């Protein structure tokens, strides 16, 4: 194992950097720009049982140090992902991929996860119970410990690969929800999904997004993400995938010190398609600056 590698739910990653779901498609766009095999892995576009167009336009709004999105889980549906996206991906990416799944019922989650669990390319299932942009789109599951646990149990019953549950930050007590997921059998916790936000169009005097609200991501949310990762690290013993506004190698180190075993990078990919490649390249220098020999040694290091 080299200085950058970490082990996530029993699967080794060359480095902890993982493009976050919804900012990296199914990988092929970015494969045109750089060799995406330099990534630890990536989490593909949130996939549902049936194809979805998502929300009406506009879906994107800019904010200070971040953006709102209300895409609403646009995706071709799990069968098209298996039939078209995964074979296309196999040509350019030779590592296990993280399969991000959303649903609207326990049956949805179980069905979609079971189908993706069968795919040899899939290394982990990232179960999104936190999409803020779909009515009943998982967020309702993610805000209540019992509901969150029910999704985990439904998915664990039909899958064999590591199940990582992606949590919403729009809750009073993130730790209790993480604990409920762990108790229900989750193999890992990933957080944070986006913070629910809104911008208003001063010209039209109406919410800017057709959906009204959207999910806030970007550097703006980083301190909230670090805090929640820190809190969840004290609440659970399964590995944590930290995300939320990570934009630099220093941010990756800060997330890991807070308790993250791996770190997802989201919005940064949208403003600079080379963000993840460059963050990985900058890690050794940043580690040297802060006297870090092996990244795996600093996970949770900020906890006294």
């Amino acid at each position: 194992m080299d200085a950058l590698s970490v082990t996530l739910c029993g699967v080794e990653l060359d480095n902890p950097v993982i493009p976050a779901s919804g900012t990296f498609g199914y990988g092929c766009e970015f494969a045109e720009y750089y060799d995406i095999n330099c990534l630890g892995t990536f989490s593909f576009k949130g996939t549902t049982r049936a194809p979805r167009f998502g929300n009406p336009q506009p879906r994107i709004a800019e904010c200070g140090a971040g953006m709102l999105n209300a895409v609403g889980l646009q995706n071709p549906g799990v069968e098209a992902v298996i039939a078209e996206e995964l074979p296309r991906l196999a040509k350019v990416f030779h590592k296990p991929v993280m399969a991000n799944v959303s649903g609207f019922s326990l049956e949805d989650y179980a069905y979609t996860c079971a189908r993706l669990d069968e795919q040899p390319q899939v290394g982990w299932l990232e179960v999104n119970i936190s999409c803020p942009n779909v009515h009943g789109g998982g967020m309702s599951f993610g805000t209540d410990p019992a509901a969150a646990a029910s999704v985990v149990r439904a998915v664990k019953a039909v899958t064999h690969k590591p199940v990582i549950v992606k949590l919403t930050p729009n809750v009073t007590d993130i730790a209790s929800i993480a604990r409920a997921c762990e108790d229900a059998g989750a193999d890992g916790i990933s957080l944070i999904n986006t913070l629910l936000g809104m911008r208003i169009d001063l010209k039209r005097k109406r919410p800017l997004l057709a959906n009204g609200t959207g999910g806030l991501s970007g550097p703006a949310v980083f301190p909230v993400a670090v805090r929640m990762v820190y809190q969840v690290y004290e609440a659970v013993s399964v590995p944590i995938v930290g995300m939320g506004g990570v934009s630099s190698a220093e941010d990756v180190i800060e997330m890991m010190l807070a308790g993250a075993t791996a770190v997802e990078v989201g919005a940064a990919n949208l403003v600079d398609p080379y963000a993840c490649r460059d963050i990985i390249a900058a890690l050794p220098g940043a580690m040297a600056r802060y006297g870090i020999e092996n990244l795996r040694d600093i996970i949770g290091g900020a906890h006294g």
Partner: protein
Amino acid sequence: MKKVIFEIAENSPLAAGVYRMRLAGDTSAVTAPGQFVNIALPGHYLRRPISVCDGEPGALTLVYKVVGHGTEAMAAMGPGERLDVLTGLGNGFDTALAGDRPLLLGGGIGTAPLYWLARVLRAEGKRVSAVLGFNTGDDVFYEDEFRALGCDVTVATADGSYGVPGFVTDALRPGYSFYYACGPEPMLRAVCEKASGDGQLSFEARMGCGFGACVGCTRETVNGPKRVCRDGPVFRKGEIVWTR
């Protein structure tokens, strides 16, 4: 797609709230009229997508309208300053569809990308007509530039203060082989309804990334959901589904 640092060679007002910026740098990724670039601006999180008005090896011309804080900041920049730009985004127009008498229909700032298209079509020896629509006479730009290319140019203004009174669709004349349109969605929709024959239309959209990753700008088409930034911004008339 290529990420390039450009140097601003010129940035000057062209019409009411409309500026022309000339950039010097690597344009190798810019391959077709109708493509756009996505510009990073200090103090703004998202890039600003701007269509290419004209391109040649080592130089790009952008004509943009000040619509918010981002384009305001752009307008305040001067020669010598550097910009981080994603170049060669979008599909661009397909000149092979033009036929011998193509018609270009521009609405407001949507006129900008048609200039490069006109230059290419003229170079191919086509007889090019251009109908350029603006709200008022103060908004008109590039009329002479289109003429200088040898285009048959008609300018229409909504308030009748200059050229033909009314919208581009009021200034349509038959006899064209194919049309290319760029402008606000209501104008494009009117063109589709009133212009006979086939055409390509270039759409605006609120974009996150500009290169297909976030699917923020997707619109429905007869061939399923398409990303304006990557599958577009140019769509064939027959593909388009009007949602609003």
